[in-house]
């Protein structure tokens, strides 16, 4: 037993990818979730649905369109080429882009729920105490939505770790660049290396279980906090 060098490379790459994607998603996702939680714009529905698409679409659909979009004739590919960056398929950056789309709902939705749960009232209170809109977001909405950030970060991270279909489509299986754990497991199975597949797969099962356990524990806690405010 023990992981091969290739396995460890895949594990480290996966952790790096998931960390990068989670940080980026929290940065972009928070304002988006904030907007979704508070707007009454007619675009709220369509945009919410668009973000949720990866929840219902097979990852291969997303991967396939990403492959087309990232390609030299696709819109993203044209854009990156015009910046002199070349195309992003089969690169770490491409994987980051793909994972951001893929894991977006797992970050935006918990954040949106958390902001919804904060409600109007604390923000109105803050306004009467002289806090402007940006101030209110940072001093009230963010701290009160903290459990939501935890859930979002954990789910976004875990979902990126577990991503397979999209990576398969746009990855190209390059060691240290795009060969993540899920692809490595697939390769082990295809190569009939069931022992190695089993080791890595077991690691994923244990990891996912621990992640979900922490999220459920946290949700109970945050539920209490929401109750507290409405007392």
């Amino acid at each position: 037993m023990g992981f091969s060098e290739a396995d460890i490379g895949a594990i480290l790459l996966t952790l790096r990818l998931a960390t990068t994607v989670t940080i980026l998603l929290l940065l972009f996702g928070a304002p988006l979730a904030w907007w979704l939680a508070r707007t009454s714009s007619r675009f709220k529905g369509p945009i919410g649905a668009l973000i949720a698409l990866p929840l219902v679409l097979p990852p291969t659909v997303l991967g396939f369109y990403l492959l087309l979009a990232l390609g030299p004739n696709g819109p993203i590919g044209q854009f990156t080429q015009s910046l002199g960056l070349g195309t992003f398929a089969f690169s770490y950056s491409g994987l980051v882009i793909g994972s951001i789309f893929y894991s977006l709902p797992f970050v935006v939705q918990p954040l949106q729920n958390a902001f919804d749960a904060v409600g109007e009232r604390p923000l109105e209170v803050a306004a009467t105490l002289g806090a402007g809109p940006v101030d209110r977001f940072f001093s009230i909405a963010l701290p009160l939505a903290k459990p939501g950030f935890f859930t979002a970060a954990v789910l976004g991270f875990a979902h990126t770790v577990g991503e397979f279909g999209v990576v398969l489509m746009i990855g190209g299986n390059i060691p240290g660049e795009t060969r993540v754990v899920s692809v490595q497991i697939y390769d082990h199975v295809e190569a009939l290396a069931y022992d190695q597949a089993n080791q890595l797969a077991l690691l994923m099962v244990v990891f996912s279980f621990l992640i979900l356990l922490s999220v459920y524990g946290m949700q109970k806690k945050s539920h209490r906090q929401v109750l507290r405010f409405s007392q």
Partner: protein
Amino acid sequence: MSMDYKKFSRRVLCLALLMPVSTVAAELTVAVASNFTAPAKYLAEEFEAQSEHQVRLVFGSSGRFFAQISNGAPFDLFFSADQEKPQELIENGLAIDDSLFTYALGGLVLWSRDEQLIQSSPAVLSSNQFSRLSIANARHAPYGIAAEEVLSNLNLLANLQSKLVRGENIAQTFQFVFTGNAELGFVAKSQVYQDDILISGSAWQVTEDLYSPIRQDAVLLQRASTNDAALAFLAFVRSSRGRSIIRSYGYVVGD
């Protein structure tokens, strides 16, 4: 091999003589390696037209089929993309030894969508005219093993290592080139040739001395040992009509 074949065909012949012409319609399920998708469909269609039997085709990766068959998947026939997996199934007692035969030899082609890129030679591989070369994963895909062999024989494998992107199977390898994300790639001849004519782009048909033959074997699975429909379909695939269909998709078939 040819001994087995004779023995097997005699049995098929005997069965055919013993059976009344209008046999009871039966159904069979065939697991087919995805590179063989198109010819398998055509074969099944013709077979269904001339017999009472129904053929259900399931396409996928040979490695996955192997795992599924080992765990009791209800397939009657297995058309693998390689030789190892059918052989291993036989050794595990899951397939019938004397039914094993090579149904096709895959042809390897270096292909690009760009009509100018490949001048019917490997010259482009030593140029700087591309940044990505798509090949199948050599760990488990026979076309990937062949592609690495070619690169190795051309003394290019080490130099091109950083440009290689690997498809999990030959279909994905083709997809990378087709979408332009890789400028060229080693694909199956059956994917880009129809009746020996290049469908689009530019290509170099890799000469056979640069790689070991990509033998694709089929085998009758244990559970179907007495399935008339399965035997009949195997017989059809091996008939001259069947072989010419396979050949028309760019595969080499022994006589």
